[in-house]
């Protein structure tokens, strides 16, 4: 399951980031922003037009991601796990 498939206010744990190419700057930036394996992510909101972009919380930080960016993030557990 990918982050963009997660429903509102549910949480998933990051399994890995999928780089679309060997030099995928967005995948690299996601890593630097703390989207790393083992971190729980919670969906806070979806954008008003077509549910894109989405807002997520990771740790104490909230980020807005376009769904194409969120699709690079593969989740470990389906959903429903509470934030640690």
């Amino acid at each position, binding site marked *: 399951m990918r982050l963009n498939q997660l429903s509102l206010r549910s949480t998933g744990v990051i399994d890995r980031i999928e780089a679309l190419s060997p030099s995928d*700057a*967005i995948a*690299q*930036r*996601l890593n*630097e*922003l*703390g989207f*790393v394996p083992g971190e729980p992510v919670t969906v*806070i*909101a*979806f*954008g*008003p*037009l*077509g549910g*894109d*972009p989405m*807002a997520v919380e990771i*740790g*104490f*930080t*909230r*980020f*807005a*991601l*376009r769904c*194409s*960016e969120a699709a690079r993030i593969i989740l470990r557990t389906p959903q429903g796990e509470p934030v640690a």
Partner: protein
Amino acid sequence: MSGSLPPLRIALVGNPNCGKTALFNQLTGSRQKVANYAGVTVERKAGRLITAAGRKVQVLDLPGTYSLAATSPDEAVTRDVCMGVYKGEPAPDLLVSVVAAVNLRLHLRFMLELRQLGRPMIVVLNMIDAIQKQGLAIDVPRLQAELGVPVVTTIGVKRGGAQPLLTALDDPAPAAPAPLPSGTDLHDEVRRILSLCVARVSERRQALEDKLDRWVLHPVWGMCILFVLLFIMFQAVFSWAQPFMDLLDNGMKQLGDFVGTLLPAGALNSLIVDGIIAGAGTVIVFLPQILILFLWILALEESGYLPRAAFMLDKLMASAGLSGRSFIPLLSSFACAVPGIMSTRTIQNPRDRMVTILIAPLMTCSARLPVYALLIGAFVPARHIGGIFNVQGLVLFALYGAAILSALIVARVMKRRDTDEHPLLLELPNYRLPGLQSLAVELWQRTRIFLSRVGSIIVTLSVLLWALSSFPAPPAGATGPAIDYSLAGRIGHLMLPFFQPLGFNWQICVALIPGLAAREVAVSALATVYSVGASEADAASQLTPLLSSQWSLATALSLLAWYVYAPQCFSTLAVIRRETGSWRLVIITAGYLFGMAYAAAFLTYHLTRLISG
């Protein structure tokens, strides 16, 4: 002086939203210099301070970044300065790594990346006051031991909150930290340090963000909140600024009149009154709009709302190939493109910023309204269609619509060659109350830049235009308007063959020249050419019957179409030059606006003639 401690150059480095700017404003107050780094449009903010021990410190506020793997020009500046390889910028003696105590997990990773550079550094644990709210406690001595560099705590938004950092600057420079073995996973290292130094002392309380974001990011309520905020902003810029602008405008006119009576009539009098004072007036009159707009934008930015607005509008702006960040500069440009273009600084992506600057002049600014009002009043019947829609109102609406549509097309064309995926990846920072001192410092910086950089270009050009319109003086016994005998008049006549295909007569061509200084001047210039009343209000009322009898409908509509693009605003071009540091972009803007204006006016003129026979 004290002599014992040599001057020090420090650089503040940190993630976006670590409170670095507030800290910088706190440290240096008004002793700041804002310029651009050589060759790039990245803002270089430097300031000075003197510590308690009398040590002089030069502070550089580097652009915020998440990592040293730069993805934009401002991040590249930060990387190069930190590494000491930026051309023309000596390596700082001390790196001050600012980390927000409330966001250690993210910010410590970048701090560790900086530490790997092996340069002398200290860590500033900022926003330390907010840490209890999160129910956390930080063991600062332990953190210092684990990081191997001095750690001080600050509260950037509180007066005196930077004192621990100031004290630390008087200490002898810390030794450069030994880098971690290469291949160390920085995320793992952060987790290890956090587990040792940060303890949970009470339930987590991120209640404010949770509660507010439920409303602010809500698909329906969030849009309502955004709409109300934008409505108030637009009102403030568009109408609340008006009395102040009128006041300044009148003040400058009275100053001109007063100075005019002091000096003997003649060229010097005219130069000072009509050239310099009137030119400075054009500049100063923008100030209320700029101050109100910037106060509003800075407050939205500092409070953490602006990125959320960008989130709400991202999809809409993506249809033009832009991101949500472009919305507010474009909206402000409806009042005036000058403050609108200045506010594009909040757009991080340089290409998005450039396209936004390019299309900002297409947002119909308030200076075009007097021209629209005059021509619509003279040529469009005040009839109603279907009992509801006023034809004059419909034409005005169509003019605004045509401009927006053109902007969308231009943005799409500009972004067409751009196939890279530009990420949104926008941090939604915690909500916080904007610090008043920081707001005041930022506002003052913007004002100063506008008055000195943009102002000087506008005043110079105004004087030039004054000279063109005043010399040579009409010969004795001349009957026509004075401007007709001047260089501007001659240029107007020379322009005629070029503009005749648009249906413009020589009077319009002549009026276009003083209209370079400000679009609305074209109305009073037309009045001058037709030798009617001089003041703007008189001009409009006396011109209306005159124009409707002398011009064809096709000519009037053609001039309206020309003004949708109105490529002749020097103030806009001056601010583009200042904001981008490039004449190339100025030429591109002027060129494409001119081309579109010409094409639109040409089509309008000939279509109207075809239809109306």
